[in-house]
């Protein structure tokens, strides 16, 4: 456009902006600010009403298990000695490549009296959430919640490798398997493909655990070890990152 033509066009600078439009814009800004401010103020509500995830939602209540069998893992944290036999067994059973892992062990250290330190090892794996963020974000439904067993599984052929599920997972329990025959995100499926679907009753990691730290079973079965452990008196049960609202099926106890 030549300058002569350009001068004929209506100016788009602020001088042409009417005051009513300015007010409207300012009002919009204030509304957005107020919305965030309101959220902050609301977060100062008392603890009781702030329990966004109710007790009954995190810790299982007898007779309220959505799946049958309702596969669950209980980790008796104080028994973990980081021998990593579970990790080795998992690699062997599920062909996990060197750069990936379906389960890992975290270490925390707490200072005791004097110069002593207490080490705690925390095994972490896919929590098979009842409200899985990974499933929510998957654009191709490559990952899904098994309606029968509650296990969060993968259909490798549908995975496009966008890694949105890896970002969404609160437990960092997914990795991308780059092997030519896989090329998909891989994760713990409670050994469904490698063992449970073939008639085995427990996972490779739980079977390999020498201390009884990992206990696997059907929570809907009242005779199972997991049911007994999670319904024993004087037991503190906790889950990792309850605030995520993911409602995990992997529980931690110290008994």
């Amino acid at each position, binding site marked *: 456009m030549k300058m002569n033509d350009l001068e004929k066009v209506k100016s788009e600078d602020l001088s042409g902006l009417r005051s009513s439009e300015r007010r409207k814009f300012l009002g919009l800004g204030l509304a957005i600010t107020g919305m965030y401010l309101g959220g902050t103020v609301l977060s100062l509500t008392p603890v009781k009403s702030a329990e966004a995830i109710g007790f009954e939602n995190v810790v299982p209540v007898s007779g309220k298990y959505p799946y049958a069998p309702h596969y669950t893992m209980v980790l008796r944290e104080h*028994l973990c*000695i*980081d*021998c990593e036999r579970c990790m080795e067994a998992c690699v062997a059973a599920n062909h996990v490549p060197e750069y990936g892992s379906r389960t890992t*062990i975290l270490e925390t250290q707490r200072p005791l009296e004097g110069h002593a330190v*207490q*080490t705690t090892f925390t095994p972490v794996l896919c929590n098979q959430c009842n409200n899985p963020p990974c499933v929510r974000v998957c654009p191709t439904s490559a990952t899904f919640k098994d309606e029968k067993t509650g296990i969060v599984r993968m259909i490798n052929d549908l995975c496009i490798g966008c890694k949105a599920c890896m970002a969404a997972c609160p437990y960092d329990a997914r990795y991308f398997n780059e092997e030519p025959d896989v090329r998909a995100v891989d994760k713990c499926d409670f050994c469904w493909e490698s063992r449970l679907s073939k008639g085995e009753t427990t996972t490779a990691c739980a079977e390999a655990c020498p201390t009884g730290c990992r206990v696997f079973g059907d929570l809907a079965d009242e005779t199972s070890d997991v049911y007994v452990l999670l319904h024993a008196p004087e037991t503190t049960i906790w889950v990792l990152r309850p605030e995520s609202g993911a409602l995990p099926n992997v529980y931690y106890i110290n008994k």
Partner: protein
Amino acid sequence: MNKIMMIPLALALLAVPAFAVDDTVMEGNGAAVEQAAAQGENIGKAAVEPVDDAGTAVKKIAVGGEEVAKSKVSAALDKAGKAVDSTKAAFSEAGDKAREAAGKMAEAVDEATGRAKDALSDAADSVGTAAGKASGAVMDAAGDTRDAVVKAGSKAGTAVAGAAGEAVDGVKAAVAKLAGKKEKSPDTYGPKKPIVWTKPVVGAVFSHKVHTVGAGLDCDSCHDDLFEREAGISEESEDFNMQSMYDGEFCGSCHDGETAFAANTRCTACHIGVIGIERMNKKDQ
């Protein structure tokens, strides 16, 4: 008694200047002056008698007081003597005990000296300092005691000082031995690094130092009945596992919940895991 005697004396003293004034006023009046002088003389005489009495009384009191004072001083001397004796006894007892303790410690030190010559020589300076400080403190205390005894009139100060000297020597020796033992305690005779067990599970460690320096165990507490004096022998045993320990074998001999924490508690105190081993190896590098 004294106060009553003092009244006429005071009157006499007051009368003298009073009459002196009258003297000047009543100049020329001889009779009055003489009368006044006579009165003054009488008063003076009257004053002298009680004063004499008082003098006698004071002398008597002085004699009596001397006796009392003598008896008191002798009693004080007796007490001081007894105190000196008991102090002496205490010091000599302390000296004996210190010598005994020093003897015992000396044995222990001698036994370990062969293995810890270097550590001992390094420790010499600090031992000297510690002994010097201790002897200074004891000498101060002895000095105070001696001063107090001398003040009470006792001649036994030197004896106490002698006893104190002995005690000081004993304490000095004990402190020297004790300081020597503390300084030489690093476990130079065991394995330098923690023993890492890989059977039956990886990632368990045993620190020799924690058990010798930390827990103060002697060699024969564990060797050679429980464990051979060579790393890795135990883990070759088929029954080297936690169940054996719960049954009182191996570590379970002490780690039974009474002598030391039970083997089925505090797992990660020994099982530092693969992560712990990796960290340990990194530190070594």
